[in-house]
């Protein structure tokens, strides 16, 4: 079992997620990209802890999933508040605070 392959896939997923956060304009898609970054790390943890025959990486994954759920709750709350005020969830409308 080659651990590098798994980590490269995780790295690619992480980069896709990171790019998504940076260039997408829709708030929900940005949150999905954040989840993708978290899940890339989860993939890496599962692969590594399978490779090393350890349990601690799997435990980390459970914690990451729990935190991701909590973050999603906050994220959707903020998205709803944003939509109520601006009538859209386009991130470009978040332009009051600059410089």
């Amino acid at each position: 079992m080659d651990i590098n392959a798994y980590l490269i896939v995780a790295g690619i997923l992480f980069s896709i997620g990171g790019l998504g956060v940076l260039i997408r304009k829709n708030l929900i898609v940005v949150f999905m990209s954040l989840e993708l970054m978290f899940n890339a790390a989860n993939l890496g943890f599962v692969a590594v802890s399978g490779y090393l025959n350890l349990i601690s990486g799997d435990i980390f994954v459970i914690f990451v999933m729990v935190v991701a759920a909590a973050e999603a709750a906050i994220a959707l709350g903020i998205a709803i508040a944003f939509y109520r005020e601006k009538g859209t969830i386009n991130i470009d409308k978040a332009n009051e605070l600059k410089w």
Partner: protein
Amino acid sequence: MLNTLQIYNNYLVERSLLSVMPELVIVIFAFIVLFLGLFRKLPDNDNSYYLSLIGIVFSILYVLMLSNQNINGFFGSVVFDGMDVFVFIAILFAGLLTILMSKKYIEMFNLPLAEYYSLILFTVAGMMLLVSSVNLIMIFLSIEFMSISAYILTGYIKGNTRSTEAALKYFILGSFASAFLIFGSVFIYAATGHLNIYNIHNFLYTGSSNSGLSASIRDYLSIGLILFLIGLAFKMSLFPFHAWTPDSYDGAPTTVTNLMATGIKVAAFAIFIRVFSSIFDSSVFNFYNILWILSVLTMTFGNLAALLQTNIKRLLAYSSIAQAGYMLIGIIGGGHYGYTATLFYLLSYVFMTAGAFAIVIVFENLNIASFDIKSYSGIGYKYPLISASMSFFLLALAGIPVTSGFMGKFYVFSAAIKSNYDWLIFIALLNSALAAFYYIKIIVRMYMISNGDADQVELGESSANMTAIAANITPSLIITIIISLIFTLLLGIYPQMFIHFASQSVTSLWKI
């Protein structure tokens, strides 16, 4: 005779609970505040405020009671040691001052108070857990615990577009940073097979003494540590990762801005010191050079950007970015002396910044000045005491002698000089001169530029002013300002005691 400590030593669960007791007290009080908030019939004004103050004071007492202990809890994920004692005191003071200054301010917005105070307490508990965690899982969890509460607090002013936008930006960039943090943890885990930073430390040092680390381990470790550094740099608001700082500081309620500027920064720097001193091994990669560049960029950018600001909250935000650059100098200086200097700087920074934000809140409550610096013109003669203390805090931030800011900068710079970072100090001194310009610009505005109508203030009007002040400045705000003044002065005049305290706490970092 029954020795209570011996009993604690014998029972693992109690021992584990003891190691998080100060945090646990805060969390329990946060839940009590939240629970009492359910009963809307109760006069909701004051009880949550007083309860959260009591919680913070109890927690401080607990920290002092346990201050000589060195406790490992929860199978080595949480540790309570000397480092925690110092940083807990700084964080708890940041929380105390934040709660004190929110009394009148948060009532102005007609928002639910119980949730506000309990979220403040949760944030404080998160910061404390972050400082005491020595396991990558715990570090991630407590960063999220702290940040999620802070995201909610940032967007707390319902219907205010600026507040919501600040929360949005803070959330996206904060989660982005957490993702970097856990992705870095993956590589550290792949390289070493451990999640506990002390185990990682032992692995690295015993490994390198035998045969050197193998090439693949070295690669994984350098990728992992750099990603981990990026994740923490977001929380410390170092230069390329600072983008959220001015926006979320500006849009958040001013009290929350204070908590973010003082508490979260202190916690992030403390955990960085803990992680850096144990697993950022220079045999893998020379991290001192990276930190050198980050520090220079951070302070230069922070100061240059602050020069252009016209909004006081943004100016303080950029100044806090610049201060992060100075704090990093102590870590670059390294060793016992450097970490001591950084801890001292963190403590003095808490009081300077809290004082400055308290006075911004005073002006906001009085409606005599908006956030625009122009509206500060001529305030010096109308409100002499408040303006004098504002000038004092700004001079402290600029690093003028007699204040704590000067002593902090002095210790940090001398730590770097000890390690022969001459150019770094040269740039830092130039930056301090640059920083003095924009701090003193505000003082000049308050005292030397007339407001136009300032001359027409008559006696009757000024007595009306006095009643307005009495109605709008609560005793708690005055207490906040007085505490900040006393400590800013004390840390500046008599720093030996605090330096001694800091150096004692830093020694625990090497007792691995």
